[in-house]
């Protein structure tokens, strides 16, 4: 197996493949936060995010032996996680949806020209808007705007050309901007016609 020498996960993977199963927990420690947050932003509630995270890592444990090292481990793992999340969503689409107890606050147009929303409510609106995106657009928003991947890295993770990443992100942002326009600056501008 060729290992990218600058890959910080390299020694851990080598250790795991040499039979040290506890090395897997080091990988867990390094990546659980990012994967959990990816899962949460993909599915929108903590229960499903927990299940999805666990399944992704179980899947990783099964597939780790097939990692060839021709890319950084994180790129390979995130591609595995993204693909698994998409499959999971398609399968879960048949199930009744669970929602977090904290419901998203919706504007009441009868309350007046403007209404200030708390930051928490705005965040819930943003999350709700992200969830409304098609999966491919949702993924690029999460990877770029939330997890800090650049276009090339996203292209490697998602397996599509950089141009496709660019257009997906552009369309996603335009949709989000349209949805969230009434709530910019924490105030509801729904009744303020320009």
């Amino acid at each position, binding site marked *: 197996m060729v290992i990218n020498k600058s890959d910080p996960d390299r020694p851990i993977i080598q250790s795991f493949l040499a039979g040290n*199963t*506890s090395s*897997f*927990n080091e990988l*867990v420690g390094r990546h*659980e*936060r990012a994967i*959990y*947050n990816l899962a*949460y*932003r993909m599915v929108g509630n*903590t*229960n499903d995010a*927990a*299940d999805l*995270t*666990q*399944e992704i*890592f*179980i*899947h990783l*444990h*099964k597939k780790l*032996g097939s990692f060839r090292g021709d890319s950084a481990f994180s790129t390979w793992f995130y591609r595995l996680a993204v693909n*698994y999340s998409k*499959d999971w969503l398609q*399968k879960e689409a*048949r*199930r*009744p949806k*669970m929602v977090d*107890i904290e419901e998203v606050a919706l504007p009441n147009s009868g309350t007046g020209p403007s209404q200030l929303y708390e*930051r928490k409510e*705005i*965040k819930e609106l*943003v*999350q709700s808007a*992200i969830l409304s995106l098609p999966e491919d657009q949702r993924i690029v*928003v999460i990877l*770029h*705007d*939330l997890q800090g991947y*650049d*276009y090339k890295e996203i292209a490697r993770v998602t397996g599509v050309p950089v141009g496709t990443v*660019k*257009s997906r*992100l*552009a369309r996603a*942002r*335009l949709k*989000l*901007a*349209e949805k*969230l*326009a009434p*709530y*910019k*600056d924490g105030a509801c501008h729904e009744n303020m016609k320009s």
Partner: protein
Amino acid sequence: MNCKDVIELLSAYVDGEITGEEIQQVDSHLEGCPHCQSQLAAIKNLISMVHELDELEVPAGVSRSLRQIATDKPSTTMPAKGWLTNRLSYLVATGAVAIAALTLLLIQINTGDLDKQEALTALTGKAPVQELSKKQAIGSEEKSAEVTGQHDIDQSAKAAPDGTGAIPNTYGGDGYSYSRSDDSRSQLKLKRQESPAESDELLLRGLPGSTNEAGEQWPMVQFSNKNYDKTSAEVLLGDIQEKTNGAYSVKDAKENQALIISKMVKKIDALGGRGDLMRSPVNGLINQTKRSALPVYMEKAKFDKQDCWLIIIRWGFGSDENDLYKTSLYITDLSGWSVIHYISN
């Protein structure tokens, strides 16, 4: 460049992911176009709002369970070594289960604690489907039985009721012991035991006949006139979860699943219901979790004014000593096969 071209580039423009030439063209267009300036401001504002989202901490229970993956039994996580090895392993496992089931049956017959129906069930019970599924996962796609934790309503709904009440997956138990005197025991605490029950004085882990300090008997079955909605169902789930936290383990689910289900069936009968009709649906719900699971609570009531069963299952995975730390509530129609609502903690 026209507005359409510019708007398509604005996202990459903000990210610095366009060429120098494109930057000049966009800048030039923006100078004289209020509409595109407004679009640019909207995109920047949107990015700012997304950046405000908090990064979540991984829940402790999730983190703990992730660290159990590597220490799980090899058969649940390691890739299969070959068809023949797995076939032999399966046959050995099946034979061991069959012997254990027969031993259990003889014990129960001797103690007079087994009625006809259960004797028939025990004799006709098949080898655990879980074992076969795991071995069949060789080279299969990711969504095999080894990928646990799926709650597939469709599979549950498709399963036909078993008229004989036979339990699809009967764990004969290995090391299971159940004394006839357990039912007469009084004031047992509902708590984890550190070693298998060997005498009446030892505390049992939520097994039939145990009573906690509040006088509650677990597992619990109730008939009520309550009309639940989503909110009150969540409250119920939280309440039962709190009452049974730490009381059940993976080992319990492996060794006592059939026993607990049988006890719940009897309790339904005692309340005037048809317990035998619920055996298969409850088994169906347990099996679709594809992890260690136990039913702990059933209530016949209403949900949004519709007659229903509320069935709470505790489940989890990991080693035998791990808690069944997850709790799920299935609200089904009276047949138990059609799930109306589902929530999970």
